[in-house]
């Protein structure tokens, strides 16, 4: 494995999103990894509809919350085609699900994987490099005040409450860290990104890890 890896260098990561006052982080992380998976085979990166997942993933609660693996399971089961963001734009509130005919152009999920990598973050590095950006859940309570730098303290595991995307890592320095894209806009953290110390399952980053295949 390379000591440093970042999917942004391969053009497979979109810009940092802003979920605003909608608790739809779970949908942003799921759609984010699908966009990345698509961009890995078909360039350039293209935004897909987060609102479609928020409105239509009926087993989740839209802007009131959700579970990433449940959304991925639903996408995999229904083979629903995710449409372009421009066709179903983000409104920051839950709405009525809009249906598109099956002939409509879109991206559907072929398969997905969900793992617990706690105690096996080296393996998680391998999966990130092989499979692309990973959707993870974290305990983000202390992220309310985060400005930047590598998170090493004040972050428990087994209390997941937020979904984000791991897009890379850097193990070249004294403190190796995961590079995590958040959905709270670019004014938060390191221009929208958080760095989390690798090893020790800081923030529970390895507890629930999902990848998607198209």
């Amino acid at each position, binding site marked *: 494995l390379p000591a440093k890896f970042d999917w942004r260098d391969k053009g497979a990561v979109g810009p940092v999103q802003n979920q605003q006052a909608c608790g739809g982080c*779970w949908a942003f992380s799921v759609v984010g990894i699908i966009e990345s998976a698509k961009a890995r085979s078909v360039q350039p990166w293209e935004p897909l509809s987060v609102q479609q997942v928020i409105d239509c993933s009926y087993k989740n609660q839209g802007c009131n919350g959700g579970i990433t693996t449940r959304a991925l399971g639903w996408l995999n089961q229904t083979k629903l085609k995710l449409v372009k963001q421009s066709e179903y734009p983000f409104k920051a509130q839950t709405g009525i699900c809009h249906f598109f005919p099956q002939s409509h152009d879109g991206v559907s999920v072929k398969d997905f994987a969900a793992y617990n990598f706690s105690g096996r973050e080296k393996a998680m590095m391998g999966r990130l490099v092989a499979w692309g950006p990973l959707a993870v859940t974290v305990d983000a309570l202390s992220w309310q005040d985060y400005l930047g730098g590598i998170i090493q303290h004040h972050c428990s595991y087994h209390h997941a409450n937020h979904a984000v995307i791991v897009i890379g890592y850097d193990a070249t320095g004294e403190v190796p860290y995961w590079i995590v894209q958040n959905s709270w806009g670019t004014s938060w953290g390191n221009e929208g990104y958080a760095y989390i110390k690798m090893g020790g399952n800081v923030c529970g980053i390895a*507890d629930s890890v999902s990848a998607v295949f198209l």
Partner: protein
Amino acid sequence: SFRELFNRTYKLPSDYYRSKSYFKNSIKRHAYLNSFSATPNCAKYGINQFSDLSVKEFRELYLTASVATTLPYSGLKTGG
């Protein structure tokens, strides 16, 4: 400065005073959180767009994801 930087307007005086008290609490929190930041690249905590929210408000608005008690399905076989 905070209001200007993050475009905050409060409709009622009570909203303003409540947010101000949450802001003051956040300053105390930052001091505690930063007391663990010994190394130069360690995380820093301070004023950002969430500083006028209570922890409860922040939790309710932004910490809305949960995890299935068991990972429900993995399409890939793990053997081999």
